[in-house]
C-alpha cells in the first residue's frame, strides 16, 4: 500500500485517538462532563494497539520519517495514558499511616537497628566523653555556638522573662521544617555513596547532640534543657534514625547488588525505602509542630513536660511495634 492511501484510510482513526488524548490530558473534570468518557474507556485500548500496529507497518514499509514520527508520538501518548499508575490519594495516605509505615519499619528492622546504633552510640559516647573531659566539646562545636546554647538554656535568663514571645513560635516552626527535614533528606540521599553519607550524618548529628546535651547538663541547666527537648525528642530522634535506615538501604543496594545490575539493585532498594522517607518526613513535620508550639512553652510545670515526653516515646514505640499487625 502506498503511503498516501495508508494515511487516507486511517486518518480518521488517528485523529480520533489524538482527540481522546487531548481530552484525557485535560484532566478528570472535563472528562466527567463529556459524554465521550465511556466510549474512550471502551475503545481506547483497542485503538492504541491498532496505532502500534500501524507504527510497525510504517517502519517495515519505510514510509516517510514524518509519518513514522507522528505515529511514534501517538503511540507514546497512548502508552503514557494506558499505563499510568492511578492511586486514590487520601485513602492511600490513611492506609499508609495505619498499616504501611509501621510495617515498613518492622520489615527493614536490620537497617533500623544499624541506623539506631550509628546514631545513639555517638550520642552516648560523646556525652560520656564530655563528662570526663569537658574541653572535648570545643573540638566539635565552636565556642560561639556553645555560648549561644548556654545563653538559650540558662535558667537565669528564663526567669528574667527572656522566653521568646509566642508569636515567634511560628517562625521557629518554619525554621524546624526547613532545617530538620533538610537534614533528614540529606541523610537519606547521602546513602547513595555506598552508605557513607548516611553514616556521616547519623554519627555527626549524634556526636553534636551528645556533646551539647552533656555540656548543658554538667553546666547545671538540666531542667530548662531536658524539659525543652523531651517533648519532641521521640518523633525527631526516631525520624532521623528512619532517614538513616533508608539511606543505608540505598548504600546496601550499591554495595551488595547480588544478582542484579548495580543500578537496578539501587533502584529496587530506593523504591523499598520510600515508605521510610514518607513516614520520616511526616514525623519530622509533627516534631517541628511539637517543638515550636509545645516544647518552647514555659507555663507547664517541668514534671508535665517530662510526662508528655515519656508518653510520646511510649506511643511511638507502641505505634511501630503493634500497628498494622493484622489487616483490618
Amino acid at each position, binding site marked *: 500500500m502506498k503511503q498516501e492511501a495508508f494515511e487516507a484510510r486511517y486518518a480518521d482513526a488517528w485523529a480520533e485517538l489524538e482527540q481522546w488524548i487531548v481530552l484525557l490530558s485535560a484532566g478528570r473534570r472535563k472528562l466527567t462532563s463529556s459524554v465521550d468518557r465511556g466510549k474512550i474507556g471502551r475503545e481506547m485500548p483497542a485503538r492504541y494497539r491498532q496505532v502500534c500496529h500501524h*507504527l510497525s507497518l510504517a517502519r517495515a514499509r519505510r514510509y516517510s520519517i514524518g509519518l513514522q514520527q507522528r505515529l511514534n508520538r501517538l503511540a507514546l501518548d497512548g502508552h503514557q495514558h494506558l499505563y499510568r499508575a492511578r492511586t486514590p490519594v487520601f485513602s492511600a495516605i490513611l492506609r499508609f499511616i495505619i498499616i504501611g509505615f509501621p510495617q515498613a519499619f518492622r520489615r527493614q528492622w536490620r537497617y533500623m537497628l544499624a541506623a539506631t546504633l550509628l546514631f545513639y552510640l555517638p550520642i552516648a559516647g560523646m556525652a560520656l566523653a564530655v563528662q570526663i573531659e569537658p574541653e572535648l566539646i570545643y573540638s566539635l562545636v565552636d565556642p560561639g555556638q556553645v555560648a549561644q546554647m548556654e545563653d538559650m538554656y540558662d535558667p537565669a535568663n528564663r526567669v528574667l522573662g527572656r522566653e521568646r514571645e509566642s508569636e515567634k513560635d511560628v517562625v521557629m516552626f518554619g525554621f524546624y521544617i526547613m532545617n530538620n527535614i533538610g537534614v533528614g533528606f540529606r541523610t537519606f540521599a547521602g546513602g547513595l555513596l555506598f552508605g557513607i553519607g548516611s553514616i556521616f550524618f547519623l554519627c555527626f548529628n549524634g556526636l553534636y547532640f551528645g556533646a551539647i546535651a552533656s555540656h548543658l547538663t554538667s553546666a547545671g541547666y538540666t531542667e530548662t534543657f531536658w524539659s525543652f527537648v523531651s517533648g519532641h525528642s521521640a518523633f525527631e530522634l526516631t525520624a532521623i534514625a528512619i532517614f538513616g535506615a533508608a539511606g543505608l538501604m540505598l548504600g546496601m543496594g550499591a554495595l551488595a547488588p547480588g544478582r542484579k545490575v548495580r543500578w537496578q539493585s539501587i533502584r529496587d532498594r530506593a523504591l523499598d525505602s520510600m515508605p521510610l522517607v514518607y513516614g520520616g518526613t511526616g514525623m519530622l513535620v509533627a516534631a517541628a509542630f511539637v517543638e515550636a508550639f509545645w516544647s518552647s512553652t514555659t507555663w507547664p510545670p517541668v514534671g508535665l513536660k517530662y510526662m508528655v515526653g515519656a508518653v510520646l516515646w511510649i506511643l511511638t514505640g507502641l505505634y511501630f511495634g503493634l500497628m498494622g499487625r493484622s489487616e483490618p
Partner: protein
Amino acid sequence: MLLDTTHNIATPEGVELRLPVAGLGARSMAWLLDALIKLAALVVASMVLPFLGDLGQGLWLIAFFVLLWLYNVVFEVLNHGATPGKKTLGLKVMNANGTPVGWSGSIIRNLIRFVDTLPGCYAFGCVAVLLSKDFQRLGDLAAGTIVVYEDKGHAGSAIGDTDAVAVKVPLTLDEQQAIVGFGERASRLNRDRAEELAGLMTPVFGEVDADRLRSHAAWLVGGERNQ
C-alpha cells in the same frame, strides 16, 4: 542508526517507541531557568510576607524549604513531567519504560539531587550525565527516570503541492526513504542547500534537481496525478 541519542522502549504491544534523550546542555539551561524562577519566587515572597509579621517569616522559611526540595517534584508529577524550565526548553521527565513519572520516582530523583551537586557545581551529576547511556544523572539512575525532548507534534508527511513524477529506475528501500525524507524537508531548506542535497542522488538518477526529486518523493508516497 549506528550512533544516536534515542532511548528505545519496548511496549507490551510489540512495537518499539523511540525517544530523543536530552543532553547536558539543554538540561543545564532548564536548570538555570528553574533556578531563576525559584529565585524570583523567593524575592517576591521576601517583599510580600513581611506584611504578615512573624507568621510571614515562618511562611518564608517554609517556602524556602518547598522551593529547595519539592518544586521539581510537584511540577514533574502534576505538570506532565515538566518543570517550567524544562517546559520552556521542550524537555520532560518520564520513567525509562515510557510511563509518566510518579511521586516515588520523582521524589527519589530530586532527593538524590543532593548527591549530584557534590562536591560542588553539580560535579557528580555532570560526570554521570556524560558517562551514562541515556544522559542520566545519579538521581535519574537511582529512580529509573530519563529526561527526553518532548515531541512538538508533526503534521505527518507534508511534501506539499507538487506534481508526482514516476521513478523509472529501481530503488532500494533506503533510497526511497531518503528521497521521501528529502521531499518532506525540502520546503524548510534554502535553495542552495536543497540543490546540494539533490546532487547527491546523481549516481542514481543522472542529472537531477531539487524540484524533480520532490516530484519523485510525491510519487513514492502515492501521488498519481501526473505520471
